[in-house]
Structures are given as C-alpha cells and as structure tokens.
C-alpha cells in the first residue's frame, strides 16, 4: 500500500512536470505561429479596418478580395512561375552535377582527387556577396540579364550538395560495384542504375533543402532580374511595400500565397527537411 502511494505521488509529480513542459512548449509554439495567423486575419480585413486603433483581432466582415487583388497589383502569376522555374532549375542542376562529382570523389580513384576535393570544398567558405559582382558581369556578358536562366545558373553548382552526397556514397558496400563491373557495366551505368538509387534519401534531402533556399533567395534575384515580369516572387513582393505602402491586406495576402508552396513542401516532406538539416549539422 505504501509502495503504491509512493508510486502514485511520483506519477503525479511526473504529470505536473509534463504539464509544465507542455505549457512552456505551447507558449513558444504560439509565438512561432501567431504572426502567420495575424497575417491571415489581416489579409481578410478591409483596408480601412487595418488602420483602426486599437487593432481588431477578428475582421468585422471577412473579405477575401485581397487574394485576388494581389494578382492585379503585381505580375503575380509571372513571378510565381519564375520562382518555380528558378527552384526547379537549381534543384535539378544540383542533383545532377553534385551527385556525379560526389560519386567520383567517394568511389573512384584518380590523380589529384584529394586536392580537387579540398578545392571544391573551399567554395563553402567564401561568402556569397564576395562573388556577386563578377557573377553579375558574367550573366550580363552572356546576355542573360532579366532572363529565367539568370536566376538559377550559379546556384546549380553546390559544394554543400557535393559534400553531403559524398558522405552517403562513402557508406555503400564495395561489392555492388565489383559485381556490376564483372557483369560488364560501365561507370555511368553503375552510377545511374546501381549507386544512385541507393542514396535516394540523401538526394531527397538535398532536393528539399535546395528547393527551399532557391524559393526564398533574395539577393541574387534582386541583382540579376530587375524587370518585374522576370523576378521571382521573393524579390517581387518587396516592390509591393513601396508601391502599396498602406495596403496591408494585399501585402499579407500576397506573402501568404507566396509562402504557401514551401509550407506545403515542408508539411508533406517534413522527414526529408529534418533529415537535411540534421545531415548538415552532423559530424559523421
């Protein structure tokens, strides 16, 4: 009897502790999510209502027209399309170029391998702002300013992606390649049909994080594509601020729509997101 009372008091303590934990975590989560809720509520208000002091919490009348207005206030459709193009271009480019190089660095023997790898890794250390001026010149010389490829060209090559995939290729067993080679498969075939499918989780993680970085990138698009028709949404939305300084509902509606694709990617591919972050932070 005594024992059971001890146990139940312990359980009560555990419960009190876990309630406190939940309260603290929920408060934090509220701080994280509230701005988005506020964005949605603001987008659903009329322009006049947003200027009310004190601010109203819920809209007096729900008004969704801002979500349509943003398509006329900006070349919003084109901007979304440019974002998609930029994101797909960078992601596909990185998957192709990085996986090829990563495979060679991890599994093939060649002269100068470690020197070349160190050279490639050094790209990681250079701040991007240091490269932006000549990169702009190159794009200009190629006649690509204000074009879709300008957005994704430099971003297709990534030292981070190469490094991350190489770590994965290193873990694969040697026997697979040997068996394939005995069967007469060439290097490209071994890479494509045997090794690449085995690192699919890493490819997915890299794709997801590259997509996020591309969708959210701001500095580079601001520099190379100054024509609103050619801007991705990340840069395009900033022009709403000057133009429609007071039209908060439209601004909020626009930024919500523009955030939505990545939020959906995140919700559906959360596992890969988490993995890609954990991978970038792991020591192995």
């Amino acid at each position, binding site marked *: 009897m005594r024992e059971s009372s001890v146990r139940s008091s312990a359980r009560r303590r555990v419960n009190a502790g876990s309630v406190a934990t939940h309260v603290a975590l929920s408060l934090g989560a509220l701080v994280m999510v509230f701005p988005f809720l506020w964005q949605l509520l603001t987008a659903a208000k009329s322009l006049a209502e947003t200027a009310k002091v004190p601010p109203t919490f819920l809209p007096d009348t729900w008004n969704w027209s801002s979500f349509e207005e943003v398509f006329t206030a900006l070349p919003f459709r084109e901007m979304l399309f440019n974002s998609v193009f930029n994101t797909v271009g960078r992601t596909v480019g990185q998957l192709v170029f990085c996986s090829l190089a990563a495979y060679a660095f991890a599994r093939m023997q060649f002269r100068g391998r470690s020197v070349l790898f160190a050279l490639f890794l050094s790209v990681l250390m250079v701040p991007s702002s240091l490269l932006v001026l000549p990169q702009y010149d190159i794009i200009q010389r190629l006649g690509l300013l204000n074009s879709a490829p300008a957005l994704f060209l430099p971003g297709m090559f990534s030292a981070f992606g190469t490094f991350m995939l190489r770590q994965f290729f290193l873990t694969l067993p*040697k026997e697979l390649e040997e068996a394939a080679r005995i069967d007469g498969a060439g290097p490209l075939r071994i*890479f494509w049909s045997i090794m690449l499918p085995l690192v699919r989780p890493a490819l997915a993680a890299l794709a997801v994080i590259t997509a996020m970085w591309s969708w959210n990138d701001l500095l580079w698009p601001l520099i190379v594509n100054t024509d609103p028709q050619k801007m991705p949404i990340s840069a395009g939305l900033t022009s709403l601020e000057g133009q429609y300084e007071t039209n908060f509902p439209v601004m909020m509606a626009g930024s919500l729509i523009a955030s939505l694709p990545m939020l959906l*990617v995140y919700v559906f591919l959360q596992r890969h997101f988490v993995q890609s972050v954990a991978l970038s932070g792991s020591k192995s």
Partner: protein
Amino acid sequence: MMSVFPSTAAAKKAGRGEPAAPPAPKSRSQRAAYLFIAPLGIGFAVFYFWPLLQTFYYSFTEFGAFGGHTWIGTDNYVRVLKDVTVWQALGNTLIYCAIGLLALPVAIGVAALLNRRGLRGVAVYRALYFIPFVTLPVAVGLVWNWLYNGDYGLINEAFEWFGADRRYWVSDPSTAVYAIGAVMVWSTTGYYLIIFMAGIKGIPQDYYEAAELDGAGPLRRFFTITLPLLSPTIFFASIICMINSLQTFDLIYIMMAEKNPAIGDTQSVVSLFYKWAFIENAQGAAAALAFLLMLIIAALTLVQFRLQKRWVHYA
C-alpha cells in the same frame, strides 16, 4: 541564404585518402572520374573561382562612368577603412551576430524540453517551431513590420496594455536594430532546434538513468550531462550562426524602407555592399568591403576554433 560549414571531423576526413573503389582498368576509370567531376568543376570555375579572382582585381580598381576598370591600387581599402558608414555597418553587423546567437540557448532549451521521456506531440512542436524558418523571408519581414507598426501595430497594443509607451520600433534608431535582431532569432530558432535535437539524440540514455538513480534533478541532469555532451554540436551551430548573421541582408532589405530614418543604424555590411555595388556604382569599393567582410568572418571563425579547446568536450 545560408552557408554550411563542414565540421572539423569531416574536414579532417576529407584531407585524408578515403577507401576507394578497386583499381580496375586504370586509364579508363580515371577518365570516367574526370568526366564525372567535370560539369561541377566547370561550374565552379566559371561562377566561383574566376569571380573570386575578379573581385580581388576589382577591389584595386575604380569603375568608370563609361564602364571599364582603372587600376587605383589600395585606394578602395583606404576609403573603406576611413568611411564612417562602414564602421557603423560593421558595428550593426556585430550586434546582429550577438543577437542572432541568442537563438542557440533558446533552441537548446526547447530541445531539452522536447527530450523529456514519454513526452507526446514532439513532432508537432518541432514542426511548429520550424515553420518560420521555411517561410519566405519577405513574408516574415512584412508581417513583422506590420506587427511593429507604430500606429496600428499589435506589439504597441501589448506594450500599452502593460503601461509602456508606444514606439515606432523599426524607424526609431534606438530600437530598430534590436527589432530586426528579434525577428532573426524568431526565424532561425527552429533550424537550430533540429540540429540540437539530433545532437541530444546521440547522448546515451544510460547517463540520464544513472544520474536519476543518483538523485540528480532535471536541471542538474541538463547542466552536467546534456550541455557538456552537446558541446560539439553547440560549437558547430555557433559557427554556422555566426557566419550567417555576419551576412545578414534579407530582413534588413525588406524591413527598412529607403526613407527610414533608422537606416544607418540598421544597415549591415552586406546591405552596404549591395548599396555601393548596385545603386551607387562604386564597385571597386564594394569589392574591397566584401573582402573586409571575408577577413572578419575568417578571423572570427579562427578565434572560435581556437577557443573550442576551452569548452568543447569530444566524448
């Protein structure tokens, strides 16, 4: 938007020779290997190595009104070092860095709470904390500007409720830099949370059980087990955090309108670089400024590596 720094262990591994594929027909497989790395190598040469040399060259030149660069020696560097706005931007950048680092203790705290045995809803919390990090920076900047708004903003409402004065948070030079810094912390906490959760997962559960048997409470366990064993992860995260906050640009660009009176008090080194290079056409000076930033990043990273012996414990 962010760079990733390889951890020491990984960097060391990279230097050493790795176990390689068996030496099959040599010349053919060598050629294949070069073909495999060629596309990336060409991309790097064109878009990274060549630009690096170019920037170095630009930093000793002046960009003329009709195009073309004229060699002016070290004048740009002298200009950069003498310019008051550079020092101000540098000061602001260091403030962003210091504030940005606050995301680490917050993330560690949340990660420790989430590590509680038998806690439900861990995945949900993790998802909610991570959402600000995946959201478009423009969306983040716009909504926070709105929350900070001096006339209709919700934050003033809350402050008034507590009896404090209403403020124009992002146009008041005394608060603007902190207002932006707070948003930085808010939007990056989730990222570090995931890194720390992965780190904590690597700590053997037995340590906690043993400590519990010895009567150590949750706080004690946190300070004697979690924190020291997490120190390599904290080291890694602090380096990433530092490098990223030294390159702050997006939020400042979005949150600070051109006419904002606090612009000088919030401008970071990268925003000043952007202004010089692409608005004022002072490309040479901008290039010199970018090199200065790189030197600062390298120096601070080196200091961190030096200091690591004092507080990082590798198990």
